[in-house]
């Protein structure tokens, strides 16, 4: 199982021989190396009493949890390093470290990124280190997000069941109720526009394809599936187009703001009440709490509006796992930490307080910090809404191994469509074609549905 370094070393040798650039060409006849992680995981031998050091990359400020681990586990020291959030640099850093052969032992990887990491052999086969025995501690669908070909590849951390955050005080002022259906949602938006003095109900963020994916997920669309060894892309279905048409009407009729969410401009609008609602995930509570502390007590959470009255369909936005990257020398120790950080009640409580999301471990919600009336939400036990939402998520949704590229192109097309007066629904066909192309460019078998 020789991995790729030979190629790099060979090329360097040619360079040292100063034969110049073209000398690299003969190598083309001899490309037998593997793609992806430069180093494979192998358990290093440890002497008794030796302290193992692990490096953990995450963008959630979990230092307190890590400190707790270091206090209670003197034999394994974990060093937490804060990395840029997801595609804003975090994954770039991880992929570069895998290619270079110096990855951290553990890293936060979102569920929709896992197939992409599988393509570069970036995740340690945890079944080889006994991970299968841990299965019962986790919500089944979240556990299955990290199982490929029957082998466990990651430990689930948290998810993001969706709900509706809204400003109760403003809704009362304008005489509107929390909308139960999308039609009511649109009606509420019209009222806010008429009475709000420049305010809008919410923002449509073209830069957030994973949010739009969640909207389609709720509607019942499935963007990707597999048949045999083929990846079948189905983003341009009637169901997805229905969702696109709905939001396009909201944009065209000027019922929503258009712009990036969770940006400085957006937070400013949240702080000043220009925005009075957010169709967001459970981890959005921490976003609002930390960025708009002045609005404390005015927020409430309602279930996600439904397409058909009386339905109970939900969706997920985000959700991460604690991955043990390919190339670690301490997979056993890393697995111990990954399991502890996601299941230990005290650890989960600390994680929740910093916005880590909806725990993937079963049985930790009751009695945790989440299971309390919250002053920020006016004393509402708002997580009851997300508990119900979590149960209502259709868990057959699958992700493409090229999600990053697909989403980047999708976001670009959305932005262009809105700026150019084009149709959102029409971009779905282009997104579908791009996704098939991205899969093919990676050497996979793919086609449109």
């Amino acid at each position, binding site marked *: 199982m020789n991995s*790729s370094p030979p190629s790099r070393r060979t*090329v*360097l040798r040619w*360079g040292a021989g*100063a034969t110049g*650039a*073209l*000398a*690299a*060409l003969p*190598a*083309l006849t001899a*490309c037998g190396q*593997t*793609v*992806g992680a430069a180093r494979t995981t192998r358990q290093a031998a440890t002497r008794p009493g030796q302290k193992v050091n692990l490096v953990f990359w995450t963008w959630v400020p979990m230092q307190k949890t890590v400190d707790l681990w270091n206090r209670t586990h003197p034999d394994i020291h974990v060093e937490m390093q804060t990395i840029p959030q997801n595609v804003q640099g975090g*994954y*770039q850093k991880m*992929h*570069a470290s895998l*290619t270079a052969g110096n990855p951290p032992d553990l890293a936060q990887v979102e569920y929709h990124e896992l*197939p992409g990491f*599988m*393509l*570069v*052999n970036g995740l340690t086969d945890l079944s080889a280190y006994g991970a299968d025995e841990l299965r019962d501690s986790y919500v089944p669908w979240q556990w299955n997000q990290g199982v490929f*070909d029957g082998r466990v590849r990651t430990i689930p951390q948290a998810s993001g069941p969706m709900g509706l955050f809204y400003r109760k005080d403003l809704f009362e002022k304008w005489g509107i109720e929390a909308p139960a259906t999308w039609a009511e949602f649109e009606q509420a938006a019209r009222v806010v526009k008429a009475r709000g003095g420049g305010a809008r109900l919410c923002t449509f*963020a*073209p*830069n957030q394809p994973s949010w739009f994916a969640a909207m389609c997920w709720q509607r019942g669309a499935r963007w990707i599936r*597999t048949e045999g*060894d083929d990846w079948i892309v189905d983003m341009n279905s009637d169901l997805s187009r229905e969702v696109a048409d709905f939001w396009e009407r909201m944009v065209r009729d000027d019922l929503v703001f*258009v*712009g*990036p969410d969770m*940006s*400085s*401009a957006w937070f*400013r*609008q949240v702080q*000043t009440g*220009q925005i009075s609602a957010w169709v967001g995930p459970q981890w959005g509570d921490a976003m609002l709490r930390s960025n708009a502390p002045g609005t404390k007590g005015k927020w409430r959470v309602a279930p996600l509006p439904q397409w058909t009255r009386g339905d109970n369909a939900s969706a997920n936005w985000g959700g991460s796992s604690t991955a043990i990257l390919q190339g670690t020398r301490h997979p056993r120790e890393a697995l111990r930490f990954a399991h502890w950080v996601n299941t230990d009640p005290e650890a989960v409580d600390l994680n929740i307080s910093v916005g880590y999301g909806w725990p993937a471990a079963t049985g930790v919600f009751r009695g945790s910090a989440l299971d309390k009336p919250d002053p920020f939400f006016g004393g509402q036990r708002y997580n009851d809404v997300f508990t119900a939402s979590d149960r209502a998520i259709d868990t057959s949704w699958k992700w493409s191994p*090229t999600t*990053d*590229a697909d989403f*980047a*192109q999708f*976001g*670009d097309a*959305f*932005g*262009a469509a*809105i*700026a*150019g007066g084009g149709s959102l629904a029409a971009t779905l066909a282009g997104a579908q074609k791009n996704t098939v192309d*991205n899969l093919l*460019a*990676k*050497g*996979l078998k793919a086609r449109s549905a």
Partner: protein
Amino acid sequence: MSTAISRTKNRTESRTMKPTPGGRRSARPDRAAWTFLLPFVALFLFTFVLPLGYAVYQSMLKPVRSGALGLGPATVGFAGLDNYSLALQQSAFLESFARVLLFGVVQIPVMLMLATALALALDTLSHRWAGILRAAYFLPYGVPGVIASILWGFLYVPGVSPVVDLLGRVGLAPDFLGYDSVLWSIANIVIWEFAGYNMLVIVAQLKAIPQELYEAARIDGAGAWQTAIRIKLPLARPALVLTGVFSIIGTLQLFAEPLVIKPLTSTVTSSYTPNLSAYNEAFANNNIYLAAAESVILALVASVLSFGFLSLVNRGKGRDAR
């Protein structure tokens, strides 16, 4: 035949020998020169030729998948020019070139004219004010591009920016991050960053002009304006050519500014410039082979444009001399 060759040989020898005064040259002049050049040559090979060669090599590879759904172990195969044709088929990648070309056609002349005007003004101004102003104009160059972009970004975002706020109060509603305006907002950042730097290069060239020329011009009755247009500008030409080439290369490599502005607006796409496109292929899409092909295409276009610019201005110079 042989006589002809020996004659030319003699002629070249005599020509090369002629300028060396004192007859005998040092025993091994070549070796000394090479010793001095060695650090440069080594650096050039390791930081330029080698990475370039490696990029060309990578650009001709592709992954070959196996296993269920292609998620099994993959090997590297020979792709030929597939990556290049794939890159050239992506409309977003081609559009990014059109975008930076449009950007360069507008931004480079504006910036260089500004830099030249500042340089001429400072050169005429004497005393300590010139020094203080020169330092002040140069200061933005000392601010890293990323920091400059964050700074300007805050001045562009509505709701946060005091500029947008003030303009709003007088009835203007500028959309600095709009679909049609964001490119020029980025141009503004680049001009702010580099006008002072280019000015300094031009000032240095102006300082090198012999004072006798100015005296002669004054005796001939030329005023400050005429001296600037007829003497200073033509003699500052090498500096303008140099800053022109730097600006062309810099424009094609536009990266940090759009990357920093991107989270503030959905009008900056993930393949807004060729560099950004290659960056996304390499690190977001994790397709280093396609990214390598895009980078090689970018390097080719940059060299064609900068050498084209050089030969264009040099042809002009030859005509002037005649």
